[in-house]
């Protein structure tokens, strides 16, 4: 190479680096994705940076899909997603990155079903709800309410909540075409609070100015409100988790540290403050006990669906060799060993799991526990089947 060229190249590099400014001083972490999680992410970031000065966390929205795509393109460190990664996206990751992203739960969310405060409706079954959203019921008097049209408010069809309700309430059927889709859960709450005929759904964290409806799985079972304990224990039929996705080969220790911190009590306090529910440690314990391959402190993914939809979700997949070797190193925080941070950087280890008051409250509710255990068992079964399947795959 001619010297002039190398000099020019160096000059260009120098120029580009100069233009980059002082950005490299702080340790940067970028979180991008779900709009639902924006507010929570911001508060988490702010709190975290107060605790660990010298870090710079950037939070941006755009949507879960944008976050996951950005993670794939390596333009973000953490993708926030209010839904689970789609098979298509997993394939995309496998093709372009070579491995799929690891999932970490950050919070729990109950999808509240709500009506205007003037509406006398108290409780609905999932089936009735489905018929309302599908457009079979068009008048409140079909449900024992006043003789008024039903106005259905929905989120945009790309929202994780939309998919969740479509799967869990509508059982895959379409929303009525007359359903109004609004940008943002707050807008749905706001609209229903102003519309006496309205019904809507959305994350519990936004709950203001409307009347929540108790939900029951079938006409004979008891109905539940999306309260903290009901969601934690999963007795409330419409519970889901909010997730972070991370590139398993990331070199950003700070990102890992942040995620661990979110699962810690300090982080969970912020989660609760921002309107969502904290991760149920009881369930994490249950996971540990049943040696679920998903050795995360994450809650069980929302009932049934994620496992069925996404067997490749589990992080102790035999294919990602290193991770399989030490699943027990971090019982509470899910960290594939490849990701384990520097000893120096390592955050204070999360306190050992114990039954908090909150959890104790949950345990008192025998019904709830029974239901939960049934669900856990069900999930366990599926996971075992999954494991068996994977083993056959590997042996082949």
């Amino acid at each position, binding site marked *: 190479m001619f010297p002039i060229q190398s000099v020019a190249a160096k000059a260009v590099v120098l120029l580009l680096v100069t233009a980059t400014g002082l950005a490299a001083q702080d340790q940067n972490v970028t979180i991008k994705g779900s709009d639902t999680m924006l507010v929570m992410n911001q508060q988490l970031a702010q709190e975290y940076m107060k605790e660990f000065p010298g870090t710079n966390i950037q939070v941006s929205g755009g949507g879960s*899909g944008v976050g996951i795509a950005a993670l794939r393109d390596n333009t973000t460190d953490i993708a926030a997603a209010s839904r689970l990664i789609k*098979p*298509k996206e997993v*394939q995309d990751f496998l*093709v372009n990155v070579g491995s799929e992203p690891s999932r970490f739960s950050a919070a729990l969310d109950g999808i509240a079903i709500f009506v205007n405060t003037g509406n006398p409706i108290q409780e609905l079954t999932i089936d009735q709800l489905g018929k309302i959203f599908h457009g079979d019921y068009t008048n409140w008097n079909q449900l024992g309410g006043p003789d008024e049209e039903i106005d259905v408010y929905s989120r945009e069809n790309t929202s994780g909540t939309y998919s969740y309700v479509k799967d869990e309430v509508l059982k*895959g059927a379409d929303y009525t*075409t007359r359903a*109004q889709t609004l940008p943002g859960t707050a807008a749905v709450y706001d609209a229903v609070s102003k519309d006496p005929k309205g019904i809507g759904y959305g994350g519990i964290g936004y709950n203001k100015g409307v009347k929540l409806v108790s939900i029951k799985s079938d006409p004979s079972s008891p109905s539940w409100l999306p309260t903290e304990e009901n969601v934690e224990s999963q007795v409330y039929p419409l519970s889901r988790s909010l997730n972070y996705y991370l590139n398993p080969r990331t070199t950003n220790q700070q990102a890992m540290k942040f995620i661990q911190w979110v699962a810690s009590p300090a982080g969970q306090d912020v989660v609760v403050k921002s309107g969502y529910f904290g991760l149920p440690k009881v369930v994490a314990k249950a996971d540990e006990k049943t040696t679920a391959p998903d050795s995360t402190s994450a809650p069980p993914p929302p009932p049934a669906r994620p496992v069925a939809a996404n067997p490749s979700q589990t992080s102790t997949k035999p294919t990602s060799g290193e991770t399989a070797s030490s699943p027990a190193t971090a019982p509470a925080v899910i960290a594939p060993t490849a990701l384990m941070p520097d000893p120096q950087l390592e955050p204070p280890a999360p306190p050992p799991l114990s039954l908090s008051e909150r959890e104790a409250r949950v345990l008192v509710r025998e019904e709830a526990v029974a239901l939960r255990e049934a669900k856990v068992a069900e999930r366990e079964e599926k996971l075992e089947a999954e494991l068996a399947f994977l083993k056959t795959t590997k042996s*082949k």
Partner: protein
Amino acid sequence: MNPTTTSLPELSRGTVLGFVPPQELEKELSVTLYERPGSYLENAIIRGITLISYSAIAAVLLIFIFIAKESLPVLLQQTDNSRSGLTMKPEDAVNKSPAELAVFLQLTESQVARLSPDVLQQLIVSRNEELKAGNSPDSKLNTTTWGMMFLPYQWEGYNMPVFIWQPIGNIEKYNVIPLIFGSLKITFIALLFAMPLSLMAATYVSQLARPETREVIKPFIELLAGVPSVVLGFLGLTGLSVLLGPLHIFDSHYTPLNALVAGMALALAVIPVIFTIAEDAITAVPVTHKRAALAIGATNWHATMRVVVPAAMPGIFAAVVLGFARAIGETMVVLLASGNAATLDLSIFQSARTLTATIAAELNEAAQDSAHYHILFFIGTMLFFITFLGNILADIILQRLKSRLEGSTAAEAHRLAEQAETQLGSSVV
């Protein structure tokens, strides 16, 4: 006798700059006339200017290529989201040819070749999962064909063929007709408000108003152009929908966020466009036209309506066309204020979903390279062409206006100019 040498120095008290004595003139001309001082630099600069101007073309081309590239799979009908339920056992992967694997995984062969066996098996597992259909017979359909995108279809659970846009779920339904309908409906409502108001206002401001009034009113209306569309959308969402609430007595199906609310909010975004262009076109009509009418006793109103406005008609039409293009391309307002329900309801009190709002809302979440993603870009391509056609139409109309005012060819323009000069000159002298 040489007149130049005698007369000039008399007048000049110093150097006579630039004076060339006659005896030297021919010699000097034979040199200087052939000089091209700085012409290389000038040519280079002009070439540079030309080159930079092409960047606008480049930008449009790049944008178009970008959109078209992503919508190509739909345009070529290469997308296929039918789920046959035919899965492939991961362990069979080694026996399959790369071509077969590529077809199964919807990848190219070169991509398949780069994958490690582990990743390949994971991919097959994941793809199997995707292919495992629900129990609906509809799952065997490829819902991304032209027929499914533009014609009604009787889906399972419906008792008649319907147009449905529901791109998320077990069976994705990609019928774009409700979106096109929604876009047209809201645009129509917006133009219904914006067109008469802004055209009347433009005519008034340009021709009828007293100068002092014009100086106040015009900047005020133009200020509307400075309101960001996100603010307009927000005002539609929180203000207009409440303001129009009492209208629900007219329709039992009334929804608070509806095409009327969105249309009115959108009208606010369109009004400055139509107003500015129409006002320019009307003001561009030579004042002589109007004076001629005034001189034979027409009122200001009649002179304006019978002479000025007809003369500016192409420009006014172009303003409307550009307003239409703006309305159909506007995103934030409709996203926030329209309610976004993809219905085919004719009522203005019903919500409607537009093409742009669909892109804005759904592209964020659509998985890259999925059928949904490509179809959203296909919608983008449609929008691009709609605005493209609108622009070309407006361009042709404006060109016609220009030639009407200036004469169609250079020669004619020249002749007209000379004629005008003559008239002017003889009238003065």
